[in-house]
């Protein structure tokens, strides 16, 4: 029993390490080769955990080999486009200039329901508003609406707006985040001054964010 505990812990860390080395991707965004590797790794890790007669090294070697292949293949795909086409595929246009390409849909084996669902997930509920829809290599559908149906932007309206930058978390759960000031866009003095103007101190703040325009958003701790 203790062997199972030790094996499980060991393989858990090996799998976590391997997934971290392979990179950040959400399960829904996996490319076909990444999906295969992820499924195989989970299967391979479970074999030595369940079967104590199997040496752990058998599972570890197989997992490491898959990670090596995945990394080498993805690095090679960056350099050699035809390799990427073979292992990853290429995006397919399903709707072009507002016209559904039924031949392509049959080729991709997707139904009209799949297409409508994909469009809805992308935020488009009416197919007649779509100018282009593309099935990506990870199976997701990306859509571009007709120009007349796109919302007007500030640049369309000729409105000048300064860049706000990415909001930075300054205080989280009553604790000052030290890395918040590393970009140099906000400094501690400005934060303290703002908090003082609101009659608050750091420990009373649940969340505080700020951007480079010195616009702060504060949620008080309850």
């Amino acid at each position, binding site marked *: 029993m203790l062997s199972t505990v030790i094996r499980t812990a060991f393989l858990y860390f090996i799998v976590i390490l391997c997934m971290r080395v392979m990179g950040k991707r959400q399960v829904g965004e996996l490319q076909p080769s990444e999906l295969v590797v992820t499924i195989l790794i989970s299967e391979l890790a479970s074999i030595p955990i369940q079967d104590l007669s199997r040496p752990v*090294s058998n599972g570890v070697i197989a997992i490491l080999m898959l990670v090596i292949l995945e990394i080498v293949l993805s690095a090679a795909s960056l350099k050699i486009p035809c390799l990427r086409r073979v292992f990853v595929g290429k995006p397919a246009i399903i709707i072009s200039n507002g016209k559904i390409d039924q031949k392509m849909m049959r080729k991709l084996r997707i139904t009209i329901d799949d297409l409508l669902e994909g469009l809805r997930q992308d935020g488009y509920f009416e197919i007649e508003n779509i100018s282009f829809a593309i099935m990506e290599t990870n199976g997701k559908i990306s859509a571009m609406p007709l120009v007349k149906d796109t919302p007007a932007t500030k640049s369309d309206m000729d409105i000048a707006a300064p860049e706000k930058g990415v909001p930075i978390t300054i205080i989280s759960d009553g604790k000052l985040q030290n890395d918040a000031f590393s970009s140099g866009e906000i400094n501690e003095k400005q934060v303290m001054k703002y908090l003082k103007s609101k009659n608050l101190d750091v420990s009373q703040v649940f969340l505080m964010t700020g951007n480079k325009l010195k616009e702060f958003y504060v949620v008080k701790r309850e």
Partner: protein
Amino acid sequence: MKRLWAAAAFAVIVAIICSIGIYCVNSYSKGLISRLDMASDAAKSGDLTKATALSQQAEDYWISAEKVLGLFVSHNEISQIGVSISKLPSLIENGDKALFLAELSSAKIQIIHTTKMEIPIDIN
């Protein structure tokens, strides 16, 4: 680029583990087979005392080998070989030469099979 270095490090680890595994399996199986062959020759020539001592040596050798081989080879395979080898000293002590030689052959075949399983040859 960091990932490629990580992959290279993993490749080195895999190569080291595989090389050590193949080396250990080969050397232990050769060591055991030579001991079994000597025991077999002694039994065939009628020197049962020597055959008993050699089969006892083979058993001790296998017990020490199990600790290392368990890292690379299926424990069931190791256990099966161990069962066959452990019978040898008592079989030859009782003078059951035919059964001794049969069990010895069986052990040898299992060792060869286990060794072959670890080597990347066409049947694997």
